[in-house]
């Protein structure tokens, strides 16, 4: 579906994407993970065939975006980072008019608009103005809009950023259904749980480069330990105490508010910490997540 080799994007002197190789297969859910400024959105815009490639090769649906932009876009669904809904139109007209941009006949687009409003649970709001919708509803409308042309490939740039947990779960459910229908999903996110929930495969990007690639499980196995012991001490003590627990795990990460000790047996780490006469304010043993992988690979937490 997507094949990129040595893909670069520069804005003047600034290189947002510095040579990445990506291969997305039909029917999979593929994720771009990374902090703000990693080059995810620039990559997505190139894939959406609205941003010219600076260098390297990019094929989308077997075509070159520089030559076949309209033909590619005809088969893409795009859900941009910010909701770019048409605020001058009603909820339903947003879908109808957007569908007409694809050249879908009027009667067909009307049928699909009603179907999609149902699908994203906005059927009762069809005549409402876009401004009257909540953030979650606007996001759902944007997703519905991206599906109006029955895309082969759906691009979602941070689909759930800024939504409350309830709204996120509704969205995930809808995306999961689409995936089951065979739609290829490509999404960017800086939420670990979202990536773990939705993505079959993902790449971690940092400073315009891909630093790791694999399924969520592969990445966790390859770049982290089975468990993590989180130790919380008093404010400002973490840096100094890190040396005292360093030997207890494979490695130790110092965060502003806690120490993370990576080990296959977290309980064992906690016991040894107490043996050494250290008394953390709070402790927690948990399984490794993508967040830990990210910390390992980029040396910082994701949402910074």
């Amino acid at each position, binding site marked *: 579906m997507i094949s990129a080799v040595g893909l670069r994007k520069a804005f003047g002197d600034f290189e947002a994407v510095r040579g990445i190789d990506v291969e997305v297969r039909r029917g999979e859910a593929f994720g771009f993970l990374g902090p703000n400024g990693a080059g995810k959105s620039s990559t997505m815009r190139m894939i959406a065939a609205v941003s010219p490639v600076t260098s390297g090769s990019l094929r989308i649906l077997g075509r070159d975006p520089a030559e076949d932009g309209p033909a590619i876009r005809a088969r893409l669904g795009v859900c*941009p980072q910010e909701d770019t809904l048409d605020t001058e139109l009603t909820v339903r007209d947003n879908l109808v008019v957007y569908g*007409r941009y694809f050249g879908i006949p009027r009667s067909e687009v009307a049928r699909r608009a009603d179907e999609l409003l149902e699908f994203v649970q906005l059927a009762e709001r069809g005549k409402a103005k876009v401004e009257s919708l909540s953030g979650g509803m606007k996001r759902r409308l944007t997703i519905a809009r991206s599906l109006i042309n029955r895309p082969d490939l759906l691009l979602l740039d941070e689909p759930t950023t800024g939504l409350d947990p309830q709204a996120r779960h509704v969205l995930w459910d809808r995306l999961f259904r689409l995936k089951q229908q065979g739609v290829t999903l490509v999404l960017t996110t800086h939420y670990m749980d979202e990536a773990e929930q939705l993505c079959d495969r993902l790449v971690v990007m940092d400073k315009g480069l891909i630093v790791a690639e694999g399924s969520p499980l592969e990445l966790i196995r390859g770049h982290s330990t089975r468990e993590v012991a989180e130790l919380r001490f008093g404010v400002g003590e973490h840096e100094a105490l890190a040396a005292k627990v360093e030997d207890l795990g494979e490695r130790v990460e110092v965060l502003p508010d806690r120490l993370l000790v990576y080990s296959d047996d977290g309980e064992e780490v906690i016991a040894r910490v107490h043996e050494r006469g250290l008394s953390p304010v709070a402790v927690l043993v948990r399984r490794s997540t993508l967040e830990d992988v990210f910390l390992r690979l980029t040396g910082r937490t994701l949402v910074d």
Partner: protein
Amino acid sequence: MATVPGVAQPRPTPSALAATRILLYRNYLSYRAAWYIFLTGFLEPVFYLFSIGVGVGRLIDSFEFNGETIGYAAFVAPGMLAASAMNGAVLDSTFNFFFKLKFEKLYDQILATPMSTLDVARGELAWSLLRGGIYSFGFLGVMAGMGLVSSWWAVLALPATLLVGFAFAGAAMALTTYMRSWQDFEYVSLATMPMFLFSATFFPVTAFPGVLRWLVEATPLYRSVVLCRELTTGALSWDSAVSVVYLVAMGVVGLLVARRRLDALLLT
């Protein structure tokens, strides 16, 4: 490529004409709820016609224009006709175009579909023309009703006003792509207001001395006024041909520049 269940195969993308029609439809929908905004743009030149053309016209006996004697109102009316075509086109191509471009991000949405920047530029231009055309049609009706039309050439005044709209809409769109904030729109009134007052709208261009006259004759509104006035009074001259070429060129250049600028602004 193999077919996947539930996934559509590619469709033909909209033609240039269809793309234009869709944007017209979109704009129609957005204005449907606010039709009265349309009305004010129409009434403005009508009020001017009554106030200056008819009111002030009472103080003026009659007028020599291209060798014919006409009433003052008949002199002012085609000027207002051209000015209303300009206003209609400029309103949509500056404020509304800017809002859609920078704030509503309408064109970002549209460009994610098979539509191109040329489709956008053409569609919005067509909309400006349609709006300007409706104003002009109404205004011509008022003129005819008041007996201010004295030639069958006036039938061509409607297409002439569309040309005026085309020229101003194209240029205004191109210039709007360079605007950074709402403050920059002061330049719009700075350009249109003096043109409205001095482009031989209320008095003949012969009132201007030397260089100043030459300057006025080079403005697009003067070219538009001349064209409309010669058509509604039936006193045609080569001036009209010059105007047509001038306005076509202005519109085409504007459209092409607007399209290039949209590429540069949106497809980054």
